[in-house]
């Protein structure tokens, strides 16, 4: 679970680039949330991605088709007290589903996270519920359950510090850790 700093920086940069392109939808709170999430969400949510993926050779020789590389956006965000996949993240999940289907040897850990409000152990269960929701989505898309493991961190590994809506929004997330 130790990630090289350069890998994390790379992912942060990529996340920012992609997230910046995401349109803000939903209520005003959610809209401002998405905007700020794009700026910093990559920090701390960096996954084992870049370095390990190139090392494992996944996708190489598959003709560099869509679905042959680990999708760059690896964090999706949730509304307060919700495990519902927001419409703007469906395409992210579909990309991961394609990748996992095209790479039967690849596996992913879905890390479920919550914001800091509420009790820790109950939040651990809520984080699992979020990651389970993503796992179900992938399963419906045809991904084998054996490729997906769920690990909930609850509120134990926040991506952003602070007791405010911005931080809360960045912390309510599921991270794809390949």
């Amino acid at each position, binding site marked *: 679970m130790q990630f090289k700093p350069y890998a994390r920086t790379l992912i942060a940069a990529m996340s920012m680039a992609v997230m910046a392109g995401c349109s803000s939808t939903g209520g005003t709170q959610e809209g401002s949330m998405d905007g700020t999430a794009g700026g910093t969400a990559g920090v701390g949510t960096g996954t084992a991605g870049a370095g390990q993926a190139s090392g494992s050779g996944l996708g190489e020789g598959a003709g560099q088709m869509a679905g042959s590389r680990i999708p760059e956006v690896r964090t999706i965000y949730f509304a307060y007290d919700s495990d519902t996949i927001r419409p703007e993240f469906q395409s992210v999940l579909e990309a991961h589903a394609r990748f996992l289907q095209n790479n039967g040897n690849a596996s992913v850990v879905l890390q479920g996270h919550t914001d800091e409000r509420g009790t820790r152990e109950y939040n651990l269960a809520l984080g699992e519920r979020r990651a389970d929701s993503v796992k179900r989505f992938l399963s419906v898309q045809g991904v084998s359950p054996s490729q997906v493991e769920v690990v909930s961190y609850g509120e134990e*590994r926040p991506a952003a510090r602070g007791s405010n809506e911005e931080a809360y929004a960045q912390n309510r997330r599921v991270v794809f850790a390949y």
Partner: protein
Amino acid sequence: MTTWLAAVLLLCTSLAQADLTIDITQGNEQATPIAVVPFAEGENLPQDVARIISDDLERSGYFAPLEREAMFARPTRGDDVSFGDWQALDTRYLVVGRVSRTGGGVEIQYELMNVSGESRMLGEVITAGQDQMRAAAHRISDKIFEEITGIRGAFSTRIAYVTSQGVGDETAYQLFVADADGRNSRQVLSSDEPIMSPAWSPDGGKLAYVSFESGRPGIYVQEVASGRRVRLTSFEGLNSAPTWSPDGRRLAMALSRDGQPEIYVMDVASQNLQRVTNSQSIETEPAWSPDGNSLIYTSDRSGGPQIYRQSLGGSPERITFTGNYNARARFAPDGESIFLIHRGGNGYRVAKQDLESGRLVELGDARQAESPSVAPNGTMVIFATQQGGNGVLGGVSADGRASFRLPAAQGDVREPAWSPFLN
């Protein structure tokens, strides 16, 4: 030269520690006035015994110690006390004493005087190693507390707590054990993955906790003295919220190995598992009733988290109905009430609910409260809260009248677990 050496030693020691300091944030206005007169000392000693006793008694919420500046006289023997002086100050009780060096340590003589009755209630001589002076002072606090209130003192107990520093993947997590006043801390586990849910065994010798060190959560049991430990569970999904049965033979826990998080009981010796709950909702945060016959736990089967009670082999009964968020409950030692986290108009607060009447009251004014843990004598609750953007520990008396904080020098502190009686 010795002073210099001592200073270096002190510095080295402090690096491996994370002591907490105590700030009394709200004294109890109805607390009993007491005066702990500075003890006579032969020469400079490393600990101010009278100060430790005075702080203990104040923190309990039962006593309001007199400021030293207000003491006109400073007797060190009961025979030298002029009761009139203290009656004029409305002091009800008086503690006097003296510390002298012996071979390898110290001898502490103290007396507890009843000011209005003009009598001696307690007198003792205690010997201790020089590095055991704090422990000796806490034992004296226990004696004084019990003599006056009739309630066993819990000052000689310990607390376990989790700290974290940093954010995201760079976060460092540590598990500490310290004296109940936050001092004398010692690290028992360090990890770059989360550590959660420390729980004392009833004999005070072991801690159960959750560690993510393998990349996924597992429940571990560690001997506090030796550091020796075993991993009890590493099932797929949640392995969380271990709590010991009163007989120390079983652990209740929340596992999601069969789908949703459910409550299980594990026999520690055989590691046999018994499933307690069976639902489509979240069940977690189990705690044992003092008689060991039933569990309380958090379930969101009604839509939001509420506390349920279930005898082993019985069916669940919902016991909280005030508000839409009640979680992480712990029994008072007498089994007649529970302490829990309640979300009302003031956010997440420590609350106490009487089980017979069902009446729930918020305790203290700490915001974002989490993880209440009850002192073994039932007089205080320690919990996690926020102060200045950092996680700190807080304490509140069981009647809500007195509060204190235990801030750390740096980082976040949370998930306090109060030990059982240790002596």
